[in-house]
Each structure stands twice: as C-alpha cells, then as structure tokens.
C-alpha cells in the first residue's frame, strides 16, 4: 500500500488537494462550537490528508514529512494540551476541565473563558487524533517493517 508507483495524474491532483483538505480540517476544529464538527472530526480529516500523501507519494517522502517519531511526539503533545488545561482548572480551585475558572488567568469574563478553554481542548484532541490515525495506518500498511531498517539489519549481521 505504500510502495511508490508511477502515476503522475494522481500525484499532481493530490499535491493540489492536500493543502485545502488541511485548511478545511483546521476550520472544522476551530469552528467546533458553532457549527457541526470539533476536535475528533477535524483530526480525522487532517490525518486523512497525511494518509493521502502517504498513499500517493510513497513511504520515503511521507516519512520525510511525517515520520513515526513525529507522530508519537504529536500524539503525546496533544494529550498534554488536553490534560494540561484540565489540570490548570484543577489548580485554580475548581473541577477538572471546568473552564469557567480560567477567567482568573485570561482576564476575561467566564463565558469567554469557557469558549477559549473548549477551543484549546479541541486543538489538543485534534492533534492527538491526527497523529494516532496516521500511525495506525502506517503500522498496518507497513506491517511494522520499514525497508531501510531491513537493509541496515542485513548489513550489520
């Protein structure tokens, strides 16, 4: 599924489509509170754009853009954003993920603080979902074996 094949039409069309898919995914994440969508859906669409790049451009170029190490870091950092906002609310003396208390830091009214807190949480969810979806597809399609690693192994022993 990840081998590079010589189809110029699909590659060029994917190259043109991918930035628009990504900006649409970010639109879905950012406008989650007053239109359908949110962190999970936007993350899935963002992950689909990277999967499209992996399918059309082959394993090697896709790893230069989004490697499995980067995916791991992204998924962890998204979770860090989510739980960090929750813990911040806990430290400020209210319940976990009770964003109203964030108004003490952000110097705005509680309603606006809730909106900003939800936005932060959705960004975290989106990053995590994107990275996890990409790495699930990466692991299934390569079977955990990357050609470079095999060559290195053969050279070593």
């Amino acid at each position, binding site marked *: 599924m990840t081998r590079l*094949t010589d189809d110029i039409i699909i590659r060029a069309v994917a190259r043109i489509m991918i930035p628009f898919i990504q900006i649409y995914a970010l639109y879905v994440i950012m406008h989650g509170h007053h239109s359908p969508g949110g962190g999970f859906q936007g993350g899935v*669409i963002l992950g689909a754009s990277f999967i499209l790049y992996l399918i059309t451009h082959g394993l090697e170029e896709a790893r230069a853009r989004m490697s499995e190490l980067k995916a791991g870091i992204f998924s962890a950092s998204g979770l860090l954003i989510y739980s960090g906002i929750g813990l911040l609310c806990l430290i400020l003396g209210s319940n976990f993920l009770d964003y109203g208390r964030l108004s003490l830091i952000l110097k705005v009214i509680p309603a606006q603080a809730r909106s900003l807190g939800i936005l932060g949480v959705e960004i975290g969810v989106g990053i995590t979902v994107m990275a996890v979806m990409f790495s699930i597809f990466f692991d299934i399609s390569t079977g955990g074996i990357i050609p470079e690693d095999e060559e290195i192994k053969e050279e070593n022993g």
Partner: protein
Amino acid sequence: MDNFFLWLGMGLFFLVLLCLYRGVFGPGVLNRVAAISAIGTKTLVILLIMGYIYQRVDMFVDISMVYALLNFLGTITVAKYLEMSGEI
C-alpha cells in the same frame, strides 16, 4: 418549493438505487468501485437538498464538503490495492 426539492430528492434516490444494483450484483470489484463513487456524488447533492428543506444549509454544506474533499480517497486506495496485488 419544498415539494419540488422533495421530488428532486426522490429522483436522486432512484438513481442511487440504480447505482446500488450495480454495486451489489456487479461482477467484479471494478464495477462496484465505479458504482460506489457515483453514489458518493449523489449523496453530496441529497445532503444539500435536505439542508434546503430544513432551512439550515450552512450546517449541511459542511458535511457535503467532507464528501467533496475526501470521496476519492477510498477509490484511490482500492485502485492502489488492485495494482499492487497484480490483478490488473
């Protein structure tokens, strides 16, 4: 006007039924892939028609946008699978 869009939607459903015949009984994978991608485009239009009937087009445009942007991903994947398994 609502009635007009209702009948338009029913006509599109009839076309979906025709495509679905090819998708369910069609000999081989290639017929099925073509039928399903046709169903995808019809789904997009039906969603917009529903949005017009519910008077909330701004919400339904978002869903149909997802189909417009991502509908070809499945088709490409099937084509790549068939090419890599050496069936065509």
